[in-house]
């Protein structure tokens, strides 16, 4: 039976991550950092990954990890989403790690699990599980080509690159040219990766590794979207209890109350969907359907939550100074990341036998 609740250990993990982010990842810092040349917060990453050992949650203990599961990683992602934390957790500790788990590359897995090495799967962030993937040319053990839209590549130490010979290669980032792209999401920036004869080490078959990595990504992204949407709702409710116009709290107007109640319903639903996907990824049961359902539902809810937060904050929500825009940008980018809601609905049509005309 799908367990949709949080265990006591999961709640303790949540509290620890939230404490860290409250102290070291305040919205004003994230905004200031987003404008600097180094949008990622590697000191927070170090605390999470090395200090708390969270980079290795998905890696078995005998391979240097924590031997936890997607359920715990989902809780971490909820909190990272709540803080729009600019750390490569989803890309390294989930996506690259899942790809390496599929390949069985113990040496590199151990390094990623320790958090001292950051990995990135060199597949465009927009790619849905099962979709075609851009590859580079493999020639005499060296790789040639250009890949775009690679999330968190700017801070990756190792890139996992699919090549035209069907293999996935591990490539050191200092052997390639990584160029940041101006990205809609300021806190999970994209980059292009140019390979001109970079040496690569074959770690396994690309197709199953990429498919597994992207499925985990899509499923666990729902938890990040849940955290994000929950922040948007909570913060908006808090603000509208204080903000007064027409000699009344704005949150007392029925038109506003109903919108917030509707949003609450969506967040409640998203929590169930995200927990179901995390549990299915952990148990391996009903995984494809649970992931597709979660991602088909999560993206529009997170975007709606951020959009409502902006509108209901009025003018202040439109300013660079207020953090709402970070959430809106993340939510909108997340709605494309690892497949749009439409792509996941199309996958579901096949999975549950509701084919189109």
């Amino acid at each position, binding site marked *: 039976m*799908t*367990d*949709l*609740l949080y265990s006591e250990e999961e709640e303790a993990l949540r509290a620890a991550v939230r404490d860290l982010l409250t102290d070291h990842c305040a919205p004003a810092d994230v905004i200031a950092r987003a404008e600097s040349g180094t949008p990622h917060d590697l000191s927070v990453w170090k605390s999470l990954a090395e200090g708390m050992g969270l980079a290795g949650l998905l890696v078995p203990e005998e391979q240097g990890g924590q031997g936890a599961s997607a359920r715990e990683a989902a809780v971490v992602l909820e909190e990272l989403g709540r803080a729009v934390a600019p750390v490569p957790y989803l890309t390294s500790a989930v996506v690259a790690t899942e790809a390496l788990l599929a390949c069985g590359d113990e040496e590199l897995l151990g390094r990623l699990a320790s958090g001292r090495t950051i990995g990135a799967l060199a597949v465009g962030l927009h790619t849905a599980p099962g979709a075609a993937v851009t590859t580079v040319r493999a020639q005499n053990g060296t790789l040639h080509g250009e890949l775009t839209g690679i999330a968190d590549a700017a801070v990756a130490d190792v890139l996992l690159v699919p090549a035209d010979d069907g293999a996935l290669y591990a490539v050191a980032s200092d052997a390639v040219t990584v160029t940041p792209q101006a990205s809609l999401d300021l806190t999970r920036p994209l980059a292009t990766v140019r390979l001109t004869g970079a040496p690569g080490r074959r770690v396994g078959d690309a197709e199953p590794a990429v498919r597994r990595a992207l499925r985990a990504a899509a499923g666990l992204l729902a938890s990040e979207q849940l955290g994000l949407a929950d922040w948007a709702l909570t913060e908006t*409710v808090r603000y*509208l*209890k204080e903000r007064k116009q027409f000699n*009344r*709290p704005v*949150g*007392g107007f*029925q038109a*506003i*109350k*109903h919108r*917030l*109640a*509707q949003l*609450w*319903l969506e967040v*409640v*639903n*998203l*929590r*169930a*969907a995200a*927990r*179901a996907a995390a549990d299915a990824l952990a148990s391996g049961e009903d995984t494809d359907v649970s992931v597709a*359902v979660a991602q*088909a*539902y999560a993206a529009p809810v997170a975007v709606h939550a951020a959009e409502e937060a902006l509108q209901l904050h009025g003018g202040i929500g439109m300013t660079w100074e207020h953090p709402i825009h970070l959430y809106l940008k993340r939510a909108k980018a997340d709605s494309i990341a690892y497949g749009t809601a439409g792509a996941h*609905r*199309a996958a*579901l*049509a096949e999975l*549950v*036998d*509701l084919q*189109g*005309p």
Partner: protein
Amino acid sequence: MTDAEELRRRARELLAAHPPADTDRLDFLRARFDAGLAWVHYPQGLGGLGVPRSLQGVVDAELQAADAPDNDPRRIGIGLGMAAPTILKYGTEEQKRRYLRPLWTGEEVWCQLFSEPGAGSDLAALGTRAVRAGEDWTVNGQKVWTSSAHIARWAILIARTDPDVPKHAGITYFICDMTDPGVEVRPLRQITGEAEFNEVFLTDVRVPDDRRLGEVGDGWRVAQTTLMNERVSIGGMALPREGGMIGPVSKTWRERPELRTHELHQRLLKLWVEAEVSRLTAERLRQQLVAGQPGYEGSGMKLAFARLNQEISGLEVELRGEEGLLYDDWTMRRPELVDFIGRDAGYRYLRSKGNSIEGGTSEILLNIVAERVLGLPAEPRTDKDVAWKDLAR
């Protein structure tokens, strides 16, 4: 011995003493009640054993496996879900002993005399009057949307006993005898063509004072127990995947490829996802209740299911194209059971329109979520300190 093992032992004991195959249905149900296995969380002597409600499943499974008869809970939903918890909480010992056993066995069906033509969402504004006459009360007024009134032996009734105080303060809660000569039940035909509900006219109905539940003037508080249980029972059921309204339309989609269009396909998939997510939310709520951590999610379930039922059944009528122009049967009937899913798509479409009205309109439920869950300010009230008789109407 754990509670669960003890319950299993008692269920087997009941089955041994009253083998379902050779026992009259009613005799078995009475014996089950007397054994404390009817609703295990009720007190001893009143059909229960005072153990946690979550253990009911242990008893039900044991009895189901032995093919024991049940009390047809859908037929007596108002009694089980609304009247019983209220009688348990506010009834005198005598009232509990008199009413709960035949209520649970289904020997006596209950209905609810709450809503009035002039008091829907603003239920506390109700105008049915109960006037003290010696040891009795004399009741006059009109109630509406009363399901099961035509088969009911008893009703839970709220009536105005003091028009000179603000509306919430002047209400008293009674048990009304539906066989009293002053009670007239008329079917109320609804847009589906059937009459699931009734109008009930009360003319000089005599209610003895020992059929009062709670104190005089305390009826609004007593009614909250009833209404809270109504919302739980309307939104709280756990379903398998495709178990609700999405089931029939998915089946039609699979069996009738000639009806498919791209536009309907997109809408169907969206609704399928929403139905599945709502099902997961209901399941999560159920798990929370079992784990003893009641969540707020319950307040939202009815809202979500109402909207989904309406959109899904609307889609289904469209999907059927030419057949969608037809209707299965407009014959006026008085069904004993409410069935949202039975019959054809057109019926489902029309019946589901009531889902966002019955048991609290969606607009009122959104207020409740906003105020009680999110803590937003309450609606401005102009009626709180005004005597009922001076309210605008």
